[in-house]
């Protein structure tokens, strides 16, 4: 059966006389007859479900009109007005719209505050006697999670969750329909769908994707086409007939709750009713028999029919003092670094453990989950034994997380399984009973079956569960690995849930653990392991993993990826250094920017009795000249020049290290500053770096430097050259002021100016001796000025 919602309320209210700037929900109290009359038009048009006039009747939205104290009254009055029209012909859905604020960390509203706002509104609607709750036009999955959790707590009526997607097929904060479907079904939505923002043509592919990724009913309420503002009025161009044409396709895609959003009227609903009444009964095949985790923006499927995926284990302070200290100090930079590096190394899911003794682990977990959710788009596993920490993480997580982990021990089950159900998380089950760790595969499978049955009693299903096969060391029991591998096989044959486990226990107490772990990983993938928890930085493991996944045949791309990865691996090369070409080698090293390779070459040159002067002139300066020339000709670019400068700096430092008494001869003293009022210093810093590496003594006064400071420094250091820089038009006059002050105070050296807005002609009128439009030119001009005086 297809249920037909009503159409737009806002459009109808304005037609009925609501003025711009007036609170639409206030009419529930002030003009209830008009509200009922609008509902009646929709009932007469053939709607099955009418929506209350409560889209903005939450505390935050109502506060714009000073009506925040009237949440209950406005919602209750709205239900009464709707009931009067619905009679026995239609059901009533309590409409809940967004707060208009984004939830932290994407905005300022806390999750708990949003939850309270939605709970208050849903409670009022429930109390007034609605048949459904419809949460609609939500642009952020975290706001939808808060609203859905609040609605589940406040009512036992079915809850319809509709997100708004934009033209690129994602919500404003990045959630795609597949991710939304998996997240919201797991979280307990009864119906999910899409409304507003787009017309039926644009919403069709979104409904198709939702249908492929969940088993619950789907709803769709398109706008009457894409909105246009004509002569000061927003209009929606699609006629009733044009819109009704799309209904068979939306129904064929899987939508069983259909209605209209902005711009739709009773005429649209009537036309849609006529089409629905002629639609043949169709049975849509829905595919939702899989386990998946989601982040805000991505879903990762896990199981025998999908590519195996690595769960990175590095965000765990156990045995890692530095990481533990950072977490304890509230510094999550290392945690974030570990996350990015693990993803780069191949992890598809990240395990997050905040088990630092003596800290508030719940706060740390919330912080880590918020930070990581803003940084990465792979799903996260929340790794804890503490239910309070677990709930803090689950609440903050804008997706479907994995809980790591639960055992068959009664205490853990009672606290963890309800949280998994409440927050729509998947859960990793360890077949460990109160009696301890079962040693054989048969015993483990028996405990796992018991766990699965218990989880089902808490409302979880098989797709919510992942099974751990338990890994013990072969150092004390030669059969340990064999039992684990057999457990994996039996899991797949008898239970079908995905298998997940940490690998490294297998090698505990043995040498070359990396070797043992990698071999075990390959065998486990073959036996049915879907997601190993491992250290993705281990190079041997990376290689064996690539090969094992390619061999497993479970990822059609894996062989291609393997080929790509290893065919391009550069062969090891050995550089032969001969006495004859050592200066040439140093020169090439500087040109190529080999910051780590230059030091041994310089040491060798010194050992071979090349003088520092010869090294500087024939290798280093020659190299920088060549680089400068290439830059001038457009053959190389600033980062390459700076890399060469860094290499040259390393070479100088090496000379000093080997011959501490060696003094380099300075080409002259240069004083540099960014002028007063200007806080930009990148360009000046680049010039300083290049000047210094070309043999000048540089006195860098920094940024935002007043003319009098520059004059004083000039008198103190007696530089041959002063370089001034300004980036913005507002600070340009300070160049003039500074040069004038220098001349007034008797400075007889040269001045050179530069910066984004400085031009050659400006430099002349400011009284500068020279202008340089980049650092390399500045060095060349400096050399010329100091040698020729012009």
């Amino acid at each position, binding site marked *: 059966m297809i249920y037909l919602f009503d159409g737009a309320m806002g459009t109808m209210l304005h037609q009925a006389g609501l003025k711009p700037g007036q609170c639409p929900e206030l009419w529930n109290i002030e003009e209830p007859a008009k509200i009922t009359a609008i509902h009646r038009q929709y009932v007469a048009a053939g709607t099955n479900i009418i929506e209350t006039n409560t889209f903005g009747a939450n505390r935050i939205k109502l506060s714009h009109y000073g009506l925040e104290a009237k949440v209950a009254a406005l919602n209750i009055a709205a239900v009464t007005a709707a009931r009067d029209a619905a009679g026995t012909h239609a059901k009533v859905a309590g409409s809940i719209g967004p707060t208009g604020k984004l939830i932290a960390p994407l905005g300022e509203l806390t999750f708990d505050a949003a939850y309270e706002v939605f709970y208050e509104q849903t409670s009022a609607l429930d109390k007034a006697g609605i048949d459904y709750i419809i949460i609609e036009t939500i642009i952020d999955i975290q706001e939808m999670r808060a609203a859905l959790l609040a609605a589940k707590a406040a009512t036992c009526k079915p809850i319809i969750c509709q997100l708004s997607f*934009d033209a690129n097929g994602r919500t404003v904060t990045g959630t795609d329909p597949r991710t939304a479907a998996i997240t919201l079904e797991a979280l307990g939505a009864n119906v999910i769908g899409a409304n507003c923002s787009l017309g039926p043509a644009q919403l069709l592919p979104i409904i198709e994707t939702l249908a492929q990724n969940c088993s619950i009913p789907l709803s769709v309420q398109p706008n009457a086409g894409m909105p246009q503002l*004509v002569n000061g009025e927003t209009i929606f161009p699609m006629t009733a007939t044009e819109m009704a044409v799309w209904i068979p396709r939306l129904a064929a895609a899987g939508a069983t709750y259909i209605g209209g959003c902005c711009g739709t009227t009773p005429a649209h609903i009537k036309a849609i009713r006529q089409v629905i009444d002629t639609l043949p009964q169709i049975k849509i095949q829905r595919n939702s028999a899989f386990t998946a985790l989601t982040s805000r923006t991505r879903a990762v499927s896990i199981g025998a029919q999908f590519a195996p995926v690595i769960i990175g284990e590095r965000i765990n302070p156990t045995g890692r003092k530095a990481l533990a200290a950072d977490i304890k100090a509230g510094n999550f930079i290392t945690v974030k670094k570990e996350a990015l590096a693990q993803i780069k190394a191949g992890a598809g899911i990240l395990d997050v453990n905040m088990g630092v003794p003596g800290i508030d682990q719940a706060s740390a977990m919330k912080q880590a989950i918020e930070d990581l959710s*803003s*940084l990465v788009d792979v799903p996260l596993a929340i790794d804890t034994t503490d239910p309070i920490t677990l709930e803090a993480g689950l609440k903050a997580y804008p997706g479907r997380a994995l809980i790591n982990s639960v055992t068959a021990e009664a205490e853990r089950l009672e606290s963890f399984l309800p949280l998994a159900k409440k927050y729509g998380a998947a859960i990793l089950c360890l077949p460990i009973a109160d009696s301890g760790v079962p040693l054989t595969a048969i015993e483990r499978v028996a405990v796992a079956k018991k766990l699965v049955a218990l989880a089902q009693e808490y409302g979880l299903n098989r797709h919510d569960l992942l099974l751990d096969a338990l890994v013990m060391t072969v150092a004390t029991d030669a059969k340990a690995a064999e039992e684990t591998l057999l457990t994996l096989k039996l899991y797949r044959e008898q239970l079908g849930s995905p298998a997940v486990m940490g690998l490294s226990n297998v090698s505990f107490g043995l040498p070359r653990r990396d070797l043992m772990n990698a071999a075990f990983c390959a065998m486990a993938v073959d036996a049915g392991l879907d997601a190993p928890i491992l250290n993705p930085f281990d190079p041997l493991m990376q290689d064996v993993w690539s090969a094992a996944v390619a061999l497993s045949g479970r990822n059609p791309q894996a062989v291609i990826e393997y080929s790509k990865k290893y065919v391009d691996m550069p062969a090891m090369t050995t550089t032969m250094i001969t006495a004859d070409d050592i200066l040439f080698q140093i020169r090439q090293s500087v040109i190529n920017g080999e910051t780590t390779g230059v030091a041994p070459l310089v040491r060798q040159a010194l050992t071979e009795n090349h003088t520092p002067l010869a090294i500087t002139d024939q290798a280093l300066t020659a190299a920088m000249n060549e680089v400068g020339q290439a830059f001038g000709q457009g053959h190389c*670019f*600033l980062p390459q020049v700076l890399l060469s400068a860094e290499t040259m700096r390393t070479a100088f430092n090496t000379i000093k290290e080997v011959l501490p008494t060696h003094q380099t001869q300075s080409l002259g003293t240069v004083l540099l500053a960014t002028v007063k*009022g200007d806080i930009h210093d990148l360009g000046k810093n680049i010039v300083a770096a290049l000047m210094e590496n070309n043999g000048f003594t540089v006195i860098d006064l920094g940024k935002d430097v007043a003319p009098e400071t520059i004059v004083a420094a000039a008198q103190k250091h007696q530089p041959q050259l002063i370089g001034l820089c300004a980036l913005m038009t507002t*600070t340009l006059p300070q160049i003039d002021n500074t040069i004038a002050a220098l001349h007034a105070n008797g400075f007889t050296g040269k001045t050179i100016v530069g910066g984004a807005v400085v031009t050659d002609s400006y430099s002349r009128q400011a009284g500068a001796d020279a202008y340089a439009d980049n650092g390399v030119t500045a060095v060349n001009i400096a050399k010329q000025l100091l040698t020729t005086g012009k």
Partner: protein
Amino acid sequence: MPFYYPRLTTVDLDETRRYASLGRNVDFSTLMLGEACTQAQLLSIPKGVWQLYAYDQDAHTILANEPVVLTADSIIKHLTGAVEVAVMAVTIGLPLEEEVSALFLKNQYNVGLLLDAAGTTAVEMTCAAVCSVIGQQAAQAGLSVGRRLSPGYGDWPLELQPEILELATGANIGLSVTDTKMLVPRKSVTAIIGLYPYHHTLNLSHQQELPCDKCNQTGCQARKETNE
């Protein structure tokens, strides 16, 4: 006032390459560029805030409590046809620019330069994310958004920076402006976006050139073409 603190799940490598003055076909270490992008991701604290105002296009006036009259041709032309404007402020915070300065002090010039470029990419991506939300919300009222334009581009003087920052309520995300009209933190942007009725959007591409089109540094490696 609407806030949006966008996620930064990636910092675009190609854009960073461009901002680092590396031409399209320059052979330069992707590894180094990638590391700079990762570092920028770690150090950025992306934040955005904006306010919507009605716009009187005949009087070139932003109708705030204290109306702001626009006088520069570039911004007036940019907003021709707009019925509302969104005034936005965006920043990625201080840590990245502090790290760039620290790197130069440690003689790591190249990494410093690349990180600065990646920071520019990060702030531009933050702007794009904020503009996307503004656009999405405007679309619900049947309005289309144009390109953003910042003070200092074209003939629109930087002197208006304090007024624009105030209109955007930028202080709420920690932004301030110096006496010389520079934003602090440096990796920040203020801008105005016009909101146009649908029928006007057909003319937008002719009316709204990229800032690069208005700049006379034609040899700039970071230059963007209008059709990009």
